């Protein structure tokens, strides 16, 4: 009986030792991968930060209006944020690679899915950034055109253009990420439809006087302008 216990115990210890001996190199490989990954991620961050500073990415971010959003959210500059993002994505990639070396069942698939998801994440960020840039550019263009044409309430036009573009961009981003595609599509349809309906109602009923005033002003002024002595700027 005693011998049997000792035998089982020693067998268990042997198996544990074998398992540990089998696991230790994997653990070491994982630690090496994580360490090397950290170094590579760090180099990537420094390199990317230098490149972004060289191409004055923060200025582009200012133009896109992204810097203002980041400041409001107490986040670092766009250059710093993107560098940090790349650092963490790269390092996380190596950490997951290291974990996959451990051979833990069930994790492999999740890790593979994560790597497949990365390109879509980058594309989504790319779309979001340039979408913000487009929203900022076109809303400003609408504002300037409205002010110079003496259109009433130019900021409403500015806000409408910005909102429509941002909603459109967000719907593309969520579709790219594969997050709640149907929900987003429906939400986009509802928001866009509601916005248009709201504008129509506001202009037709709520803003009846405004519409009347606007149309009168426009047509009456056009007639009056023919007699106005506008100064020639050139």
């Amino acid at each position, binding site marked *: 009986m005693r011998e049997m216990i000792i035998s089982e115990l020693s067998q268990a210890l042997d198996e544990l030792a074998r398992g540990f001996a089998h696991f230790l190199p994997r653990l070491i490989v994982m630690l090496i991968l994580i360490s090397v990954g950290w170094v590579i991620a760090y180099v990537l961050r420094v390199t990317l930060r230098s490149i972004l500073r060289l191409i004055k990415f923060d200025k582009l971010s200012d133009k896109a209006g992204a810097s203002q959003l980041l400041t409001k959210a107490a986040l670092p500059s766009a250059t710093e944020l993107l560098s940090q993002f790349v650092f963490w994505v790269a390092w996380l990639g190596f950490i997951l690679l290291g974990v996959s070396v451990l051979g833990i069942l069930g994790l492999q698939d999740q890790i593979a899915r994560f790597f497949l998801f990365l390109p879509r994440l980058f594309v989504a960020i790319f779309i979001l950034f340039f979408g913000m840039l487009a929203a900022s550019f076109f809303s*400003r263009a609408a504002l*300037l055109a409205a002010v110079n044409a003496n259109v009433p309430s130019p900021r409403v036009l500015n806000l409408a253009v910005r909102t429509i573009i941002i909603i459109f961009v967000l719907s593309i981003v969520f579709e790219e990420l594969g997050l709640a595609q149907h929900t987003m599509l429906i939400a986009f349809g509802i928001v866009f439809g509601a916005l248009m309906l709201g504008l129509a109602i506001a202009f037709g009923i709520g803003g009846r006087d405004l519409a009347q005033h606007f149309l009168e002003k426009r047509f009456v002024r056009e007639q009056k302008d023919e007699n106005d002595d506008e100064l020639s700027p050139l």
Partner: protein
Amino acid sequence: MTRLNKGTRGTRRTEIKLAEESFLTDDFLRQLINVGEVDILVGLPTHNNAKTIGSIVQTIQTDILRGFPRERTVIINADGGSRDGTPELVTEVSIDDVRPASNLNALRTLHSISTRYATSPESGVALRTILAAAELLRAKACVVLSPESANIDSEWLSKLLLPIYRDGFDLVTPTYRRHKLEGLLITNLVYPIVRALYGVRIREAYASEFGFSGRFGSQFLGQNVWNDGTDSAGIELRFTLAAITGGYRVCQSFLGDKDHIERRGADLVPALRQTAGALFSALDADFRAWSGVVGSQPVPTTGAEQKLLLESVRVNGKRLREMFSTGVAELDSVFQSILSPSTLAELQRIARLQEEEFHYPAELWVRTVYEFAAAYQKSVISRDHVIQALAPLFRGRVLAFVIENRNASADDVENNIEGLCLEFERLKPYLLQIWKSRE
């Protein structure tokens, strides 16, 4: 590309040039080859000018018969896609129609050539076409006249040509008799900036009529202004500035009344693109040329430097003030990217003033313009948006100028313009400071 065989050395050179000037049509090149070399070239950029072009060509021919009967002359019409038969009218006007009336005879053939450079008018392409033709024909003196100036006098051609042909100048810009409240973009922005920064007192640096020597035309044609990605709007201004920075001899010639075309308030933004846009763009390229200039010098002028008409005109001051105030209020976020906080605060203060007490001081206007120039150079936002944002502020300046000069005599108006120019000169170090600080 068409090659025509002629044995002379000059033709050989022309053939080489033809290969370079590939943007000219083969038909146009054939016509130029048939003309050969000329002494004088008259350029007419047109677009649907059928109403005026016939009489303008006759006026030009009369002036040539009278003043330059021995010179080989050609009229080049660069047309931007007219649909009213303008090019045909240019070539159909015969010098024989002019001779009996004027009792004059030319000793040389007077050629008229028309080419269609595009389906829509582009001043840059039109000027480039005229310059290329001038170089191919080795013209000694050239004049560009705008068919939109309804009252081209029979002496305009001589006044623009003689300083080049006789006195060896390279560029002749016009001065006009204008109403004191007309051309305010010129008197409140273009003239003072060109004077303060480039150091040359040219009243009409952005001119639709001007004369130039063949050598300066060729030099400008070879500059990288045609393919540098910038809009060709305001190319005439770039032309004048190129003459200044290139050290060419520049003078002014008084032409008489400037019978302006009807330009409405809605035309302000395009006008700003052609003037402020072209000027700010040139400042960027010419920084080395203007940054070291101190003070300003007058240029030789034939006739009066500027004459002002004083009759009263109706100005909608209420609308100008309203558009200025609305612009300052609504474009606050845009101005924050362009203007310094102190300038913006001062603009917001005057935007609250009523029309009777409205005052946009010269110093504030100069600071505004300089900060816009620096913002344009650094592209803090889209450059076209910078120019568009200037429009409401310019309206404010117009209102202030109108109030200041409503009952002023010609001398008083001149003194006020002179005061503004001196303010631009005085604050030039401020421009240099913000120009460098933004780098």
